[in-house]
């Protein structure tokens, strides 16, 4: 394995199932040692892409290289990748030990080494006590650990994970997210992680590719993807977003003066180039937590809009508000940082302030 090459290069991969286009030309370069997530709703093609990397499905077009090697003619059992399946796919007639050691036995690793490596990995994922059990005797979390051990014991160049935590309850999922991340850091293996859970992707990933309808909508580091989504789909799928139509009135370097149904607003783009690329009519977005509610009378400054508090939803650490302006309903969220009663009451008049840098101009 060459460490200077990307772990996986995917070039314009397409895949159709009859009338359905599962992948409509996907290109990605996944770096060595990266925790890379494919995020999208069900049916977006993320699992198909993962299966194609693993050799369990075949592209209709395009190229895939793993560690610089074109794998078009390499069948699944000879690829340097292993998969953690969504349903775990543990062999029901084998013990946990035989499940975990399966890959090593198939590769005809000498017996002593096979036993040692299997024991070591079972130790790492804390299933050493389960060696003699059968999958039917395991809990969901234990099965998940066995599936993980069975894959990583082979020391793959890339580990493919297909919604591995999808079947577990929330608490266990959160715990295993942290453990997975720690394991990835410890082993240094490149992880390609398929999930439809945006929070899971944000928690674990170095980079995320958001997919929809067989395409990658946007690909970036987790924070950049959340803070600066470029597509309407990404903005709404990753977290939630207030969207409204806007038209550019004036451009001045990175600043845009725009007209909306709430009145004029100033948008501060990340750069002059980005500002220049914004179309004349576009979709403006702002995250609920970026909207700052201020008392009435705060007005006079730019980007301040008079609103009426329609609904107050107290959720403990935060309070969520539904705000009404002329013909628009906005969603705002505020952390409950001070002691005592929080913020605003239903029916109260207030001012919503939109920080210029928090207003996002979307491509579509």
């Amino acid at each position, binding site marked *: 394995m060459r460490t200077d090459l990307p772990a996986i290069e995917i070039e314009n991969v397409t895949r159709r199932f009859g009338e359905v286009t599962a992948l409509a030309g996907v290109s990605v370069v996944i770096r060595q040692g990266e925790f890379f997530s494919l995020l999208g709703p069900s049916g977006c093609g993320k699992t198909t892409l993962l299966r194609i990397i693993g050799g369990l499905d075949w592209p209709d077009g395009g190229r895939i290289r793993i560690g610089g090697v074109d794998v078009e003619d390499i069948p699944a059992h000879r690829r340097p990748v292993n998969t953690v*399946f969504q349903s775990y*796919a543990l*062999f029901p007639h084998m013990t946990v030990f035989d499940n975990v050691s*399966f*890959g090593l036995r*198939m590769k005809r690793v000498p017996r002593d080494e096979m036993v040692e490596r299997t024991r070591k990995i079972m130790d790492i994922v804390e299933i050493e006590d389960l060696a003699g059990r059968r999958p039917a005797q395991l809990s969901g979390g234990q099965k998940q650990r066995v599936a993980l051990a069975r894959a990583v014991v082979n020391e793959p160049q890339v580990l493919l994970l297909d919604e591995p935590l999808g079947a577990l309850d929330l608490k266990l999922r959160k715990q295993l997210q942290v453990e997975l991340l720690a394991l990835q850091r410890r082993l240094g293996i490149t992880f390609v992680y398929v999930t439809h859970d945006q929070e899971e992707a944000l928690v674990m990933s170095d980079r995320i590719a958001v997919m929809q309808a067989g395409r990658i909508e946007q690909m970036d580091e987790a924070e950049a993807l959340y803070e600066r989504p470029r597509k309407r789909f990404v903005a709404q799928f990753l977290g939630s977003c207030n969207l409204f139509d806007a038209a550019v009135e004036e451009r001045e370097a990175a600043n845009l003066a725009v007209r909306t149904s709430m009145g004029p607003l100033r948008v501060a783009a990340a750069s002059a180039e980005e500002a220049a690329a914004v179309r004349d009519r576009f979709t403006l977005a702002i995250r609920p937590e970026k909207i700052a509610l201020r008392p009435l009378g705060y007005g006079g400054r730019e980007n301040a809009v008079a609103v009426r508090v329609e609904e107050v939803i107290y959720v403990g650490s935060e309070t969520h508000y539904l705000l009404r302006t002329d013909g628009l309903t906005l969603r705002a969220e505020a952390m409950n940082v001070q002691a005592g009663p929080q913020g605003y009451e239903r029916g109260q008049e207030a001012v919503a302030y939109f920080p210029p840098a928090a207003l996002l101009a979307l491509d579509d």
Partner: protein
Amino acid sequence: MNGGAQAGDPSRVGRAGAPRSRGAEMCFGERLTRRQHWLRSALTSGPGIAWVVVFLVAPLVAIAVISFWTRGAYGEVEHLWTFGNYRRFMGFGLFGYDPLYPRIIARSLGLGAATAALSVLAGLPLAFFIAGLPERFRPVALTLVIIPFWTNLLVRTYAWQILLQAGGFLARAAAAAGLVDAGAPLYPSAGAVLVGMLCDYLPFLVLPLYASVEKIDWTLAEAAADLHADGLRAFRHAILPQILPGLVAGVILVFVPATGQFVIPDLLGGAKTVMLGNAIAQQFGPSRDWPFGSAIACLGMALVMLGLWAYARAAGRRGQEVL
């Protein structure tokens, strides 16, 4: 953590979870006295048990007893206890050692085993093929598998004689391929017997096997391939364990009756070889030697059951509950 090993043991769960009733608890919505309960059991289970006792257990016991009696001078059964029938069967006859009957039983078991093996070779691809068909074609395919049973066995076997006779299409094709001399028939021969046996018994294997194949979890095969198992080993480790129950059931359903088959070997093998079936028929019929016929029947049955027991043990050791 504790108690996990027991959790997977169904017998334990059954014993602990469903305590056996004392007397009259087995009722359907109303209370029954012990006598009423007994009466109900007798009326429901009684006829079935009586049927089995009268028509299966009793004849078997009779056969077993008769096998230790002696044939009279005119073919009648004399109540003289002897091991002579079994000694004769083992080959220690009036004229010194002659392994005639051990050979017959070996031949029959061999025919049963060969038929079962051929059925497995032909039935595995067939079951997978049918299971791979679009759902609406599967009942049609299964019906086609069963259709030969709508015809009498004798008719089917005579039909094979016509198909395999000299100058027939198959004989000419075989001659053209250089397998036999031109103008030679394909029957009587061992090959013809096996063809006939395969056609007769294949459905018994395909039906239970198909039931297993249809339920295969293919993600296990994908997991095996993902874990570096090539096609053959993925089949052995991920697919075979899943279809083993159906395969075992099918093999038993073929092997047991095929061992007793003698019509097909007679008609397609040239009536020169004696099988277990016609050896028994011979003793009960023309030879009028019921005690010896009974001894052959008992020994044949014992050998088949021994074989099944060994087979079930071997299959059971692979972690499958097959019987």
